[in-house]
């Protein structure tokens, strides 16, 4: 069979099957929207994914075809793991996919499993993701032509439990903490076997590449960043929610997709809590593309974009986030445990005006020193966030010292996800926000 054509043109792609009313799509509706699961040879799928330029959407931005190959080249391959943990507090895209469009993710999982020689798929989700769990159970019960077995495992929801070695560790021994790598999961993962682990959006994109081909996939986006992405846009925008946008879209169009800013903006947080703050004036000229984002030390990360209004205090919000990240340490590595805690305490002191501005340099030294010294990338992501906070909001430290901060709390989501089950809008957006208690 040759791969290609037949896909709808333009957007939405992934979200094309969203049903009004908020339920999960049925298998027959799914087949009407996207057509049947293609019958594609393993090497052909991997080549097509390679040509598409698809990269992982779980935050690490790694070329998917290279991961597929690394596992396909090995023997005694373990199950394909769908990393549906989505532990990034502001992110809602994976739950949207699993809860509303489970068949698209499962198609991708089954296809990827066959491509690498895995005979089983395990979907791991947070145990609070009830809509996803329900939708997956329903979807799996009606899929009877899959050649691989699919099961679902619910696990803890802490920030670090979504890291891939932590997911594998949890499945192996009920401990949701990262392990020392190497060996990475693709070398030695589930029960010691080479294990492919992918984000749900990555697999949903792969399911479309398998059906419609890489040329179709590249109809949207830029040469370096082809295709579309799910972006969770939240904060000071009128219609926070999950939106599917083409790579290359400008930041101002991204904000417009979410109803536009609800007040004048001072900064954008790009990439979630491992991401970077960018001054609003610098951000508007950027496109959703790696080259643009890299020019301001950003990456799309987990696809979260948070708009911070002028009425909020970037220092305070950043102190809350870094305190949260410090608390989320898995508690295994000294530099992560003590370093992040010291950084968080000092940033909080700077934000409340009780620390001398010189303390900022101490934070920057600690940030440099702890980078790369955890077993996982948790400390690296956290210090990247802090460095950007001091870069963008560092100018406010002096005025805080003099007791001037009249800002209103912006309430960036921490802890469990702040987005309620989404309803259907222009794209897909949450109806309301519920915030659970956050231990501080």
């Amino acid at each position, binding site marked *: 069979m040759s791969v290609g054509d037949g896909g709808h043109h333009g957007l939405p792609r992934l979200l094309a099957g969203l049903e009004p009313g908020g339920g999960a799509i049925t298998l027959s509706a799914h087949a009407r929207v996207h057509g049947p699961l293609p019958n594609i040879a393993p090497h052909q799928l991997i080549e097509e994914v390679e040509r598409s330029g698809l990269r992982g959407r779980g935050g690490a931005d790694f070329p998917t075809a290279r991961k597929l190959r690394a596992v396909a080249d090995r023997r005694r391959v373990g199950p394909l793991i769908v990393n549906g943990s989505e532990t990034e507090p502001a992110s809602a895209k994976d739950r949207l996919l699993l809860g509303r469009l489970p068949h698209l993710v499962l198609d991708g999982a089954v296809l990827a499993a066959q491509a690498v020689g895995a005979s089983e798929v395990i979907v791991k989700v947070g145990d609070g993701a009830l809509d996803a769990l329900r939708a997956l159970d329903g979807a799996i019960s009606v899929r009877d032509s899959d050649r691989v077995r699919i099961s679902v495992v619910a696990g803890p929801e802490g920030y670090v439990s979504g890291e891939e070695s932590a997911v594998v560790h949890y499945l192996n021994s009920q401990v949701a903490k990262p392990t020392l790598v190497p060996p990475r999961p693709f070398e030695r993962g589930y029960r010691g076997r080479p294990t492919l682990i992918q984000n749900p959006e990555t697999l949903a994109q792969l399911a479309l590449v398998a059906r419609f081909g890489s040329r179709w996939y590249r109809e949207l986006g830029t040469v370096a960043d082809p295709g579309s992405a799910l972006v969770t846009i939240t904060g000071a925008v009128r219609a926070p929610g999950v939106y599917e946008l083409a790579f290359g879209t400008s930041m101002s169009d991204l904000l417009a997709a979410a109803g536009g800013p609800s007040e004048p903006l001072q900064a954008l947080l790009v990439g979630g809590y491992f991401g970077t703050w960018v001054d609003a004036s610098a951000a508007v000229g950027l496109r959703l593309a790696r080259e643009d984002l890299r020019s301001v030390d950003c990456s799309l990360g987990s696809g979260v974009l948070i708009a911070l209004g002028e009425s909020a205090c970037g220092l305070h919000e950043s102190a809350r986030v870094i305190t949260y990240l410090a608390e989320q340490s898995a508690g295994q590595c000294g530099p992560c445990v003590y370093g992040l805690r010291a950084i968080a305490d000092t940033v909080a002191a700077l934000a409340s005006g009780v620390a001398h501005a010189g303390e900022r340099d101490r934070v920057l030294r600690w940030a440099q*020193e702890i980078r790369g010294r955890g077993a996982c990338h948790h400390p690296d992501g956290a210090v990247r966030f802090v460095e950007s906070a001091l870069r963008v909001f560092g100018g406010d430290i002096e005025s805080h010292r003099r007791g001037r901060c009249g800002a209103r709390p912006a309430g960036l989501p921490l802890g469990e996800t702040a987005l309620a089950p989404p309803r259907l809008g222009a794209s897909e957006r949450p109806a309301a926000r519920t915030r659970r208690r956050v231990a501080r």
Partner: protein
Amino acid sequence: MRASLRINPIACEAHGLCAELLPELIRLDDWGYPIIDESEVPADLIGLARRTVDACPTLAVLLDEA
């Protein structure tokens, strides 16, 4: 032959012996955990690096010799 030094941060308990035995390559952070600025071990320090590996009470110093 190349040798490179790293720490298993999960195993490390900040005993600090490594920085005493191999100050040329290992210093300690503000909490007593080792920092390796340059992981490549020069040929004349390989013997000492091996001894440091053996001395760590939690076996957290790893020497990858290729």
